[in-house]
């Protein structure tokens, strides 16, 4: 009975995912904050600097995963409160955790899906991946964490204004990008920066990528 209950709720969370995919993936603010903003932020940072491709791709991937996986989730609940669909959802036989799980999963799928593009871009410009398995696992773990993180961000303060949630979560997201070792290596941060960077979920993904990507750099270097 108990396991039936959990399994049933788990299945129902996929109904929520389906709905979210159909409705929210193509919403303007999701596209803007999830795709365009990180892309241009990235461009503006790297243009004009002479960076090797190997250093470029992990940063791009980290940014993409982080921004896309955190762009869908926070907007869903306020959006539904405003559109007056949330009430119907809450009065359905699903627990609040089922709704959250559905929202986390839809953020996660969005992040994981879009993260494939920087990887392909990397392959295209000739960056080789030492261990695709570790990279894949890293992307999955990271985007899932980012998705959970974004739902946490959106839970407080409760609001029915998607725009203000987007603004608030961006105010937290942008600074995180700068202390997570994407633009500035963590070793170069002051002591307080290092401390803060250790609570940023993005730091760990940047670290993780050292394995699949840097490994290949080292191998290449030793060959030449």
């Amino acid at each position: 009975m108990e396991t039936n209950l959990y399994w049933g709720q788990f299945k129902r969370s996929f109904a929520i995912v389906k709905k979210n995919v159909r409705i929210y993936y193509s919403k303007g603010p999701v596209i803007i904050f999830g795709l365009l903003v990180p892309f241009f932020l990235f461009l503006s940072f790297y243009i004009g600097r002479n960076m090797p491709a190997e250093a470029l791709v992990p940063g791009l991937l980290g940014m993409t995963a982080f921004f896309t996986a955190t762009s869908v989730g926070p907007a869903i609940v306020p959006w539904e409160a405003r559109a007056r669909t949330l009430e119907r959802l809450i009065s359905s036989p699903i627990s609040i955790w089922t709704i959250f799980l559905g929202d986390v999963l839809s953020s996660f799928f969005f992040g994981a899906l879009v993260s494939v593009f920087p990887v392909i871009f990397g392959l295209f410009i000739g960056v080789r991946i030492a261990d695709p398995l570790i990279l894949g696992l890293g992307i999955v773990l990271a985007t899932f964490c980012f998705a959970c993180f974004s739902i946490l961000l959106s839970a407080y303060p409760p609001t029915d204004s998607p725009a203000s949630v987007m603004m608030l979560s961006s105010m937290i997201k942008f600074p995180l990008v700068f202390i997570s070792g994407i633009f500035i290596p963590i070793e170069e941060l002051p002591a307080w920066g290092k401390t803060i960077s250790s609570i940023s979920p993005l730091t760990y993904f940047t670290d993780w990528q050292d394995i699949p990507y840097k490994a290949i750099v080292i191998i290449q270097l030793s060959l030449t």
Partner: protein
Amino acid sequence: MTTENAVEVSNLTKHFGEVVAVDHISFQVKKGELFGFLGPNAAGKTTTIRMLTGVIKPDEGTASILSYDILREGLKTKQLMGIVPEMANAYVDLSAWNNLMLIGELYGVPKRQRQERASKLLKEFGLYERRKNLVKGFSRGMKQKLLLCMALINEPQILFLDEPTSGLDVESQRLIKDMIREFNKNGKTVFLTTHNMEEANQLCDRIAIINHGKIATIDSPERLRLRSSGLQSIEVSFDRAVSVDELSKVHGVKEAKKTGDKIRLYVDEPGVVLDKLVDFARSKRVKIISINTLGPTLEDVFLKLVKES
């Protein structure tokens, strides 16, 4: 706890800051009953329904639905309910069909059944041809009908409807009322709120009258009507000032009251009094400018009932 009651509510209370929206109400709804919650705006009808359907938590009191406690066994009670909330919407970015599929899935209805029921319901409500259209393009009446389809897709044992016909044209109102009766015919329970006396009268087995968060009385429509007779009135205005005292002496008038430039006459039989009024005007050589007969307003009935109790 008896099993013949579909809804049992005791001392249910909800505050919003200073406002006591629902104030220690208790009542029972029998299985198979069509039960109406009638009250003016801000009476606490929606707040009651939202507590019973698990959207908000009561501050005090308990309630059970089909013997399940709404707080401790929320998922079980919700599984048995169909709900048409007052201000809720279907997803406007989804088609009518996908809205139904979503709700069906949330209630764990297997795919085949989901599809069969959705087709049947959409046909009954005349929405089948539009099933692939986004709800964005639906009229208010169509949206309301779709909400009712969404409430019925899980074949509920009890249906909660919050002002299901407000703002709809006569034809749509009739269709929805017919569907509610049809649902109730199979021995299933209906709980509906309205501020329309006539609607409650046409549909309900029993009506609870609620105002300022308190239940004034619960009775059958017929008995309520008997208790509120004498609240019919005629509103009349003349081209010259006429003494209210003289008017109150016209045969059949129980009470006369000046309201602005009109005079309101409380009567038992408006038809009889109308004739007498015309005679009265002739004998006084005044002209009747306007004349209206008015049924009891909800407020009238309510005030009377509160005074009685």
